[in-house]
């Protein structure tokens, strides 16, 4: 039972952490849904590594997932390419795209704004009532979207590590022609023409 509670609490922590950490991902890797098909890199990943200090302790690292081959994860951090044996991964979160709760909230506010302005200008609460159905819809969609974690891969609670491979820069592994020391983060993906 304790193990279950532990697992659930880790899962919740990971989710919470993932929500807060979205903002810490470099802008080039924070892609909206519509831009995922234009992504030229691997997705951003946060990993908690097991350490020798004990089963409860962990090291964290973040970077672009370059490849998963031979039970090893290749993660490109801001400083270098790091290899991590999959058995050393305690938990991991991969960000496929940023969820759109912010967009929904913005659109809801923008559409409701004329009602607010009119209510203040005319001192007429009726304008606010006109927008109630819209605010309900926008708030529900925004709230549900912010709780929706389908934009993430979460190991080990929900997804298998092997599924992360499809979202790496080299899904079939790092080709021998690649000079690993030359790999670098692509901070701005807007340079792509398509």
């Amino acid at each position, binding site marked *: 039972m304790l193990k279950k509670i532990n697992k659930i609490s880790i899962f919740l922590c990971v989710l919470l952490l993932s929500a807060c950490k979205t903002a810490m991902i470099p802008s080039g890797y924070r892609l909206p*849904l*519509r831009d*995922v*098909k*234009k992504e*030229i*890199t691997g997705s951003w990943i946060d990993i908690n590594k097991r350490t020798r200090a004990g089963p409860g302790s962990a090291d964290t690292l973040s970077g672009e997932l370059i490849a998963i081959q031979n039970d090893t994860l290749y993660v490109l951090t801001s400083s270098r390419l790091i290899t991590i044996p999959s058995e050393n991964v305690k938990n991991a979160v991969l960000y*496929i*795209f940023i*969820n*759109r709760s912010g967009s*929904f909230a913005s*659109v809801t506010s923008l*559409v409701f704004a*004329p*009602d607010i302005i*009119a209510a203040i*200008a*005319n*001192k*007429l609460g*009726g*304008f606010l*009532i*006109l*927008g*109630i*159905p*819209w605010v*309900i*819809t*926008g708030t*529900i*969609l925004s709230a*549900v*979207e912010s709780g*929706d974690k*389908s*934009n993430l891969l979460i190991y080990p609670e929900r997804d298998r590590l092997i599924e992360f491979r*499809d*979202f790496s*820069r*080299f*899904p*079939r592994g*790092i*080709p021998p*022609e*690649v*000079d690993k020391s*030359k*790999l*670098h983060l*692509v901070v701005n993906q807007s*340079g*792509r*023409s*398509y």
Partner: protein
Amino acid sequence: MKLSLTFRLLLIIFLSLSSACSTTRIVREFHDPVKLNSSQIHNKSIKVHMTDGCLYLLDSLKSGSSIDSVSGYGSYYNQYRELIKTNKSSSGYNYGPPFKIPMSGVALFETNDATGLRGKVVAMTLIGVPTLIVSIYCIINPKACFGSCPTFYAWDGKDTSLMAEGFSSSILRSLEKRDIDMLYRARSTGSTFNLKVTNEALETHIIRYADLLVFPRSDCERVFATEDGNFFRVSDIRSPSSCTAPEGDCMEKVELMDNSERVSEADPKNLIQKEYVELEFQSAPDGETGLIIGSRQTFMTTYLFYQSLAYLGNSAGNFAARIESGDSSLLKRVNKVWDLLGGIEVSVYDAKGKWIKAGEIREMGPIASDIHLIKLPKTGTKPVKVRLELTKGLWRIDWLALARLDQPVEPIKISPSEVIAESKNTVFSGEHPLINTSEPLVTLPGDSYKLVYKLPTPSQEYEFFLSSKGYYIEWMRESWVEEEDHRKAALLFGFPRIYMRNAAADFKKLEPRMEEMFWKSRYVKKD
């Protein structure tokens, strides 16, 4: 079909949740170049992963005559994701020759599809766009929104629906008067009959009484009221054999009381321009007959009323006070405006070939249709020809029929036995306005009361009428005061004929959507 507010809100929440619950996912698929089926990736943007780690990002893949290569437009990146070459501009135009990619160098084709996105966007669009349209319309034309009189709802056998509006023309205490409205579709629920009265506007309603007038009746009988407050039991109700209006045949609109209404547009040059609707009845029932008219006004009177308040601006209170203090000349001027607009005047064609005036309906109010009875003089002609004279664009006619007046009847008057303040969930049954005191019930925007009436014989079927008396005070809006213009106010009340010509163009701009926007913008709705 009318839906209650609670149901509509629940529907919105349900639709939002159901669309929101379809999670948005990316379905990423990899296709082996050896087993590539071009139909799987046709017309899709595609990533081509090369064996050396380079990447083509293409808008679509074209397979040529050769199976050894594929081609497409887009961008080419090296292993370090540096842009090497592109043949597609940022604005989406292709230029130069397409990339020709040898299949031998391809490791994988990658496609990405987003799922679950459409439901959320559709939900937001379906609710957001109408909301925005109504809001913008009401911001531009605040006089088209947020208005009504005391509004009465009752059970119609299936739902609680709008049945009547009380004393619409009683806009000041000195104009307070009794109003009788037929509750045509109302049905009792056992031993009691419930009415719900709401204040859905930015108004103060002062309701002196709201009594129920009931008449025991059988299935094939109905009771209707004349304009002078007399009630007749009627039978042999006949639809006209023809209905002709300026726009042509209007039979379909007037043969049943079904919310399908005959309405015309206001004249573009003169708001008091009259029109005629002519009816023919192949034969009249024997005995005394009457014309049944189910009608309500359009929002033209609401517009003119609000516009007059806007022109009076800050002096509207003073204007009203003068009338309340007994300034009869001012009251006469106000009445002249409404007289010019007029009611529905009913005439009958007699044997001498003349139109004889039979009566006139003048009941104001654009919210609920009321049913009136006009006694017709005996002409002895066949067919019976009836003519309605009315102001263009001012009336919505739902039902026209001829009936035999069997006998005058007297109502049983019932005052409410209970008044329930719905917002406070408080039941009043002793000394309370509307029940047994002379104190009026005063309601403010958003107030809602349920009135409970005890019926004399529970199993009996009744015809129901509402007899209400009171007045209401319209609240001035900031946006109206901005339009203060005493010259125009003087023109309206001094020379209304000229004003009605001048105001036509402005009214015509709002006329097409006033009805729709009013119903969408009501301040408080029934639940």
